[in-house]
């Protein structure tokens, strides 16, 4: 494959982003720049979540670990989960949604460019907000699932027997509300973009698979996030205003929280994994030189997964004692999800079968995603069986399962996407030698860290324990896991080195380094602000291959053109202002108990938000 890259190495091109400077980034509404902002921010949060994981692993290396206190440990796993899900994997997916949905459907931007900037700023500030909790010594510690009534403990009135809890859970509740606003705004934006802004000729069933899976994800986000929003409002009221939605001592029901949480929480799992499925479905055909096998089956299996994903939430609750009929329904529904997932796996193998496989780092990451997801999927079938889950739930077996799905699946898929699309985003190819070192260490480290968790879980090690005693024989595999975690961390250090090396190197990426199939490869790397000087005409799901074939196998490098006459939205800093308003308004809720006039702060935030939105609405276009 290296040769094909060299053949097409293009001469250095003039800078494709003519606007520079901090202000241009703060006010940008360009989906590509917002994508890069999402990616850079999410990667930093991802490293933070990884750091938390390393401390967790160090604590558990041997029996009776004393590195951190039990309360710190609870905060670490709570924030590890919260960070990785809401601040790592979701925004990393959002980076690819932002950058590549418009490019792949042949659009000049998303449907609502300023709303897009708003989503990013709300996400950034929300992520900072929830992490400030560490600095004020009140990090969330109720688990990423925040089960009531541990989290709903009444704040007012407090007595000596039940002292007022700290702000830990309030940071979590408000932080998630802020992040939810970012997610819902972004989901609406991409939904409308995909429905309305496709290039002429791109019917729904000609969309690239990444766009299709992203489309399903936006629908899941729009349907799942309102549920958690409502649940979090109830929880906040239980904590601060004396309601009893989830408090049994006031007549409420803590199981209702679990139902609400998992009606959001299970689709959330597919929100995390489907983008990676889409990315793998882009990469495998390109490096096999064959179209995606079973395109229609892939589309409908993705839709089916999303749909049934709303009917399986209670498989997280088999131990709550729902009775035999509910257990049966949710067991069978969960098993049914294995079918469309299997269809995807088999079609990926069908895609590479009979192909001519080029082992680039992107391809290897995508293949590993398939291979590792199989393991996570099969362990998932094992605990779809409700009685078996009575042993497995809340043990390390589950931790192993979802790390195979979310690390083996989502992170490998997203990393594959990074190697695949890096040249398009930055005009530079990541180093393949370092990429392969990254891949092998990541693959080795991933399995060393997470595979032994299967063994420990089945042999009786529960989750969320800050230490374990001697005598249960958990030491050996825990030690291996810790070593694996550091190998994993080291592999990402190599990735960082690769990024820095590439960043300092020359622009060496042609428009289409991989012989890609989709529209983003038809334009220069990186694309000009307006993406397409002329909207492309699409006649199949592999338009760039069609063009290459029509040109006799070789396409000339697309020329940079003047964007004169192409209307692009003007930059605006009101999205950032509005995002600050959202954070002020919601963030003020932290002070319900601290300040006598907290609602003054709320009103100030609301006024700020109102002014920002007003200025945004009446901003003149120029």
């Amino acid at each position, binding site marked *: 494959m290296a040769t094909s890259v060299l053949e097409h190495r293009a001469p250095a091109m003039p800078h494709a982003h003519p606007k520079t400077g901090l202000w241009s980034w703060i006010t940008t509404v360009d989906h590509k720049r917002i994508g890069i902002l999402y990616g850079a921010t999410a990667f930093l949060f991802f490293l933070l979540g990884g750091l938390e994981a390393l401390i967790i692993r160090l604590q558990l290396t041997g029996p009776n670990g004393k590195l951190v206190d039990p309360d710190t440990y609870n905060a670490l796993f709570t924030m590890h989960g919260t960070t990785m899900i809401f601040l790592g994997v979701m925004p990393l997916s959002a980076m690819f949604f932002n950058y590549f949905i418009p490019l792949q459907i042949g659009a000049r931007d998303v449907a609502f460019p300023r709303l897009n900037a708003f989503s990013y700023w709300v996400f950034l500030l929300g992520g900072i907000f929830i992490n400030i909790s560490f600095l004020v010594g009140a990090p969330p510690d109720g688990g990423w699932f925040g089960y009531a009534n541990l989290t709903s403990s009444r704040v007012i009135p407090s007595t000596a027997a039940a002292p007022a809890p700290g702000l830990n859970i309030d940071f979590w509740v408000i932080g998630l509300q802020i992040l939810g606003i970012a997610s819902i705004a972004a989901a609406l934006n991409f939904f409308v973009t995909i429905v309305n802004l496709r290039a002429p000729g791109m019917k729904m069933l000609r969309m690239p698979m990444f766009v299709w899976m992203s489309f399903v994800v936006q629908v899941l986000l729009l349907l799942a996030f309102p549920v958690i929003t409502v649940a979090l409002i109830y929880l906040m009221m239980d904590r601060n205003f004396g309601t009893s939605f989830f408090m049994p001592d006031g007549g409420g029901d803590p199981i209702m929280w679990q139902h609400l949480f998992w009606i959001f929480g299970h689709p959330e799992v597919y929100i995390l994994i489907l983008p990676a499925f889409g990315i793998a479905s882009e990469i495998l055909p390109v490096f096999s030189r064959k179209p995606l096998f079973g395109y229609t089956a892939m589309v409908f299996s993705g839709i089916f997964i999303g749909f049934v994903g709303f009917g399986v939430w209670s498989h997280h609750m088999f131990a709550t004692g729902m009775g*035999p009929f509910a257990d049966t329904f949710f067991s069978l529904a969960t098993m049914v999800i294995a079918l469309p997932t299997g269809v995807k796996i088999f079609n990926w193998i069908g895609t590479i079968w009979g192909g001519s496989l080029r082992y680039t780092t992107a391809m290897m990451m995508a293949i590993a995603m398939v291979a590792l997801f199989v393991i996570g999927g099969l362990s998932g079938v094992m605990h779809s069986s409700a009685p*078996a889950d009575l042993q497995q739930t809340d043990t390390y077996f589950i931790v192993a399962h979802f790390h195979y799905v979310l690390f083996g699946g989502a992170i490998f898929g997203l990393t594959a996407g990074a190697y695949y699309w890096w040249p398009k985003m930055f005009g530079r190819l990541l180093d393949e030698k370092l990429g392969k070192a990254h891949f092998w260490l990541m693959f080795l480290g991933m399995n060393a860290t997470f595979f032994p968790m299967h063994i420990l879980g089945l042999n009786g090690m529960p989750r969320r324990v800050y230490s374990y005693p001697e005598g249960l024989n958990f030491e050996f595999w825990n030690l291996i896991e810790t070593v694996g975690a550091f190998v994993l961390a080291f592999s990402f250090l190599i990735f960082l080195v690769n990024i820095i090396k590439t960043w300092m190197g020359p622009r060496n990426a042609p428009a289409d380094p991989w012989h890609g199939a989709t529209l983003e490869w038809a334009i220069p790397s990186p694309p000009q602000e307006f993406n397409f000087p002329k909207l492309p005409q699409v006649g199949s799901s592999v338009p760039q291959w069609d063009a290459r074939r029509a040109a006799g196998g070789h396409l000339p490098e697309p020329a940079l053109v003047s964007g004169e006459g192409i209307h692009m939205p003007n930059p605006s800093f009101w999205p950032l202002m509005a995002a600050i308003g959202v954070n002020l308004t919601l963030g003020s809720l932290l002070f319900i108990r601290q300040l006598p006039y907290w609602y003054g702060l709320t009103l100030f935030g609301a006024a700020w938000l109102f002014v920002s939105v007003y200025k945004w609405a009446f901003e003149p276009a120029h």
Partner: protein
Amino acid sequence: MDTRPRRAWRAWLARAAVLGLVLFVAACGENYHQSTLQPKSDITRMIDGLFRTTFLWAMIVFVLVEAALIYALWRFRAKPNDPEPVQSHGNTTLEIIWTAIPALILVVIAVPTVKTIFKTSLPAPNPEVEVEVIGHQWWWEFRYPKLGIVTANEMVVPVSKMVGLRMWSADVLHSFWSPQLAAKRDVFPIFPQTKYKKVNPLWFTADSVGDYSGQCAELCGIQHGRMGLRVQVLSDADFQAWVAQQRVGSPLVDGGKPPAAVDSAWKADTVHTKGQAAFVAGGCIGCHAMVGTPLASALTLRGPNLSHVGSRTTIGANMYENNPTNLAQWLRDPQGMKKGSHMILPRPLTETEIAQLVAYLRMHK
């Protein structure tokens, strides 16, 4: 052609296979004392059998799928001057086959699953021993309403008799998990003043005498990690002896009053009288029921009933061995022994008091 590299490669493969086998055996060995793979009761054997069926099918699928993937990766690797591969777009027959075969496998798993669900999720059909399990932050209370026993952290049951559990919590959610005997089920808080009364059942018939460990499996606060428990399975005779011993001074028997003969023997014993004085003066009595004290019959105190604490093998919810050193250290610095525990001393105890209390607590077996 030189075949040496190939042989070396095979030798490494053989070594890897041996290593893999050793690790596999180690993984399912007998050395795990809290293992779901070592079931010791009817219900856990049932679940284990179901798991093994599922596991077998999962392994078959795993081997076939990964083998097909690895074969394709090797067989279809790009070679120089490869022509463009056949541009196939899919195959409906294949799609149907690879949907139908997994569906059949799922049916094979689903049928025993549903059968087992209807056995495991219902209350015990006819329990011979009934135990009420009450989760507290961060310890377990076990009450035997028919036998008149209240104890903590160590459940004692007879072998080969069906034990029916009724479980709830006194504060937040917990999950009772005894991997070898009873699997797990969550417990939900019940407060006397409200209508919310979710009592979860679980049952098991232990098939061998032994001492089994378990622990809380639902995040319940700072000490969730060390909210352990033990289940001791005794022969029928040993169990009857244990019952007779535990009934003395139990809140469920004669309002906590011990038999007169026992009471007068205690009153003649300075270990008892001095210890009891320290128990009252040190404030222990505020949270713990204890034989011979005015609150011997209390059932709603914050801490575990200590009437027979000397007979328990561990303290701090299966965290420390119950010996004089650990007990003394626990009384000296409970927060140092178990950070965040609700055991907060009203005032520091003197070393004399600690010595008196240790002797007193160990005397009451």
